[in-house]
């Protein structure tokens, strides 16, 4: 005799391992839009059964209308749950899109050994030359095409902080060794009217007594945020109140940064960065080391080969001179979505719990609907409607509420689409990670998940009461 517990456990494990691929398939967001046809398909199938089996659905619909207040209250729970879920998923989706859009598959990002985050990487300048000379790196004018970068975070005081809110903004600054090469590697253009910084990286101030201005280009997202950080008096005089423009300055202690260009980086993490000449900004901030080396490979395949080569994945063909971490940019930014995975898990948890609350609500409604209609059900049974027809009719009733609530919730959730938000993306634990500006993306995938959850709630919440209705004996219920 097998242990009962272990059989149950085994069955459960088998079930989960059977179901989870489906779960992950749909919850990968790229595929989740397919849930919409699945939902409507299943619902359509149900309606077809209702039609073919001549189930008195009008009776149920009439009841929903008569008890419209209860119907609305129940639908309200569905609306809320679906709206919140789609809004949150849109947030996560936006983060994920951002991470995905940032990487260039032909670029390889090289960090010091053990570093998974630019923030803690520390590359020796002398090693970078040799790393860039490897096969597979694209060459231009007989020089390897690469970008030597120093990623650092600047803690910039906010001019007139509102009491109780932050007094400093953590600004992500990328110091570039050779801006021209970096621009070619990253392929970012500037919005017309701007220009990359000069060879010197500084320009004289209009006031001869002041130190030269440090030239910077920056992403549009951070340009908008910094515009809000300015002192009130400065803001009033500004040409553009909502965004820094070419020529605007940012005070930094005794020096000033001057904007020479705005990068076309919308939808990438670079949109939150300020770029400057490393030889100027590094010493100014006391950081003279390099953190990142970005190589442009001759193509995506070569990029992947370079990653394997530097990471020592291939025994016969690996880089021996120094130990580094290398990733194709695509892989690197994919690994940065760790934060969104944590959020996703949190959201699923919250959605499940809220969904459970909604299920309780719909069960109450359906149980009450059924107990009010015991006599009706008895009569239907006497007239010859079989048990499963009763089951289907009541299940359809709760699914109708779910569909109604789910659709309204989706519409509400969709209203979050395109909102600008800030968050952090990062590869794992600790205070690392990048602050990013992005837009909430409520797409078909997100809506599919929202609608599915709503229908699932309706199904679970409707099934048990419907089954109880099915079990009534016709004569007894008539006597009531």
């Amino acid at each position, binding site marked *: 005799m097998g242990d009962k517990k272990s059989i149950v456990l085994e069955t459960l494990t088998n079930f989960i391992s059977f179901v989870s691929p489906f779960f992950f398939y749909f919850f990968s967001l790229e595929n989740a839009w397919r849930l919409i046809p699945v939902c409507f398909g299943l619902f359509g199938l149900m309606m077809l059964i209702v039609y073919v089996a001549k189930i008195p659905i009008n009776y149920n619909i009439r009841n929903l209308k008569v008890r419209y207040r*209860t119907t609305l*209250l*129940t639908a*309200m*729970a569905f609306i*809320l*749950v679906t*709206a*919140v879920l789609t*809004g*949150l998923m849109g*947030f996560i989706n936006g983060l994920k899109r951002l991470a995905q859009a940032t990487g260039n598959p032909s670029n390889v990002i090289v960090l010091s*050994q*053990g*570093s998974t985050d630019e*923030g*803690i990487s*520390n590359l*020796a300048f002398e090693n970078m030359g040799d790393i860039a000379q490897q096969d597979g790196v694209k060459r231009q004018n007989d020089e390897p095409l690469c970008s030597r970068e120093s990623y*650092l*975070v*600047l*803690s910039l005081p906010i001019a007139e902080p509102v009491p109780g*809110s*932050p*007094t*400093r*903004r*953590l600004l992500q600054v990328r110091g570039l060794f050779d801006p021209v090469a970096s621009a070619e590697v990253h392929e970012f253009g500037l919005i017309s009217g701007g220009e990359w910084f000069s060879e010197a990286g500084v320009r004289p101030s209009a006031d001869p007594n002041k130190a030269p201005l440090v030239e910077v280009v920056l992403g549009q997202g951070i340009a908008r945020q910094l515009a809000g950080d300015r002192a009130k008096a400065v803001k009033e005089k500004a040409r553009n109140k909502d965004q820094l423009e070419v020529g605007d300055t940012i005070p*930094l*202690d005794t020096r000033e940064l001057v904007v020479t260009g705005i990068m076309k980086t919308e939808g990438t993490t670079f949109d939150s960065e300020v770029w400057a000449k490393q030889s100027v900004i590094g010493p100014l*901030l*006391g*950081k003279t080391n390099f953190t990142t080396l970005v190589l442009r490979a001759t193509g995506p395949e070569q990029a992947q080969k370079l990653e394997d080569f530097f990471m020592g994945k291939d025994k016969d063909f690996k880089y021996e001179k120094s130990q580094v971490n290398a990733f194709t940019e695509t892989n690197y930014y994919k690994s940065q979505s760790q*934060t969104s995975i*944590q959020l996703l898990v949190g959201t699923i*948890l*919250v959605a499940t*719990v*809220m969904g*459970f*609350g*909604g299920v*309780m*609500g719909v*069960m*109450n*409604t359906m*149980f*009450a609907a059924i*107990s*009010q209609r015991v006599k009706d059900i008895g009569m239907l049974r006497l007239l010859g409607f079989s048990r499963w027809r009763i089951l289907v009719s009541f299940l359809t009733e709760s699914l109708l509420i779910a569909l109604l609530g789910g659709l309204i919730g989706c519409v509400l959730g969709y209203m979050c689409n395109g909102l600008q*938000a*800030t*968050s*952090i993306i990062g590869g794992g*634990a*600790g*205070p690392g990670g990048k*602050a990013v500006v992005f837009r909430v993306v409520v797409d078909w995938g997100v809506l599919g998940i929202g609608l599915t959850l709503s229908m699932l709630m309706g199904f679970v919440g409707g099934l048990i009461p419907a089954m109880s209705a099915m079990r009534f004996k016709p004569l007894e219920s008539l006597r009531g």
Partner: protein
Amino acid sequence: MKFLMLIFKNLRRNMVRSLLTSAGIMVLVFVITLIWSILGFLDMATSEKAANFKGIVTEKWSIPSQLPFSYAATLEDGAAREESDVKPMDSMTWQFFIGSVDKTNIGFSTFIFAFCMEPKKLLTMMDELDSLQPGPRATLDTAIKAMEGNRQGIIVGQKRLAAIEKKVGDKIKVFGINYRDIELECEIVGTFPPGRYDNNTCINRDYLNASLDAFKAAKGRPHPLAEKTLNLVWVKVPTKDAFSKMSNQIDSSPMFAAPPVKIETASSGVSNFLAAYKDLLMILRYLLAPAIIITLTVVISNAISISVRERRKEMAVLKVIGFQPNQIILLVLGEAILLGVVAGAISSIGTYYFVNRVIGGIPFQIAFFSSFPVLDGALWWGAAIGFITSFAGSILPALSTRSIKVVDVFSKVA
């Protein structure tokens, strides 16, 4: 009393409905308790204290802050130069050592995040560890004494210890990730009490500094990070006034030219770090928590309206035999509120004990916080949420009983 009994009996009448409703209340209150605990904890961390300020000294411009260790002694004194200058009540230095117990395989099961410090400061400066119960405090103190006796001794959080599959007494070698080519040979002398420091490790700062010196002696050149090893200094001052005096002392000190330093209150330091999470926290606070509370209200309202509709006739009888309309309203409100308060209280108090005692905190990563305790407020939150939502959810159904006509009870035959 008799009223309460009547309410209670009414709740027992439809057990299925009462159970479904309380189950709904419980799960929703559970989530709110978690959300409010996280928000409340962060609020506490970012709210300015009136006394016993913790000041954080870091590099003025750059993050992560990397200062030469030579700053330590002066900063521990609050850069006091004159007799009249303010000195900290207590202080500690932080050096972060990120490493791995396996040189080639760096991952979850090998990762070590350690702060290097003076071991005795664990008990006086560290949040939560400075206010331990006598039992755990004595245990930790034993480990600290061991670290002071043997500078290679380290304390490892319980979860981290389990992840690297080691136990107290084992010897481990930690390969530096940020400190390249620094290898620390350590002996695990104890663990932290469960909770906040489950994934952290504490190393004696003397050992790290000695290892950096040894590197210089062996290689003939200083380690690249040798002058950047001090990450931050904490100072404790009694009053806001003392804090601003010390702030002036540090700003005006000639000691800290390259790189310059700044001092900020712990709360403002934390809130600057949390700024990037602003939207996320706003969503939690102003969207998710209210949405859950409204859902809760809707669920309760639904259940109560159903109950009221089913019992209109009974309520008419009560009115006929002399119950005032207000007493009927109270009866309905009482039923909802009893259910809400009891279910809510059970849920949040249960969450408090379960999460704090069994799980050891809410695992959620925000900035440098990785685990949040369920706050003491949870002991009353559930009852309060239950009260408010059940009141809000039942007031309309309750008022609807006013429309019940006493004449409805008589047989319609006549």
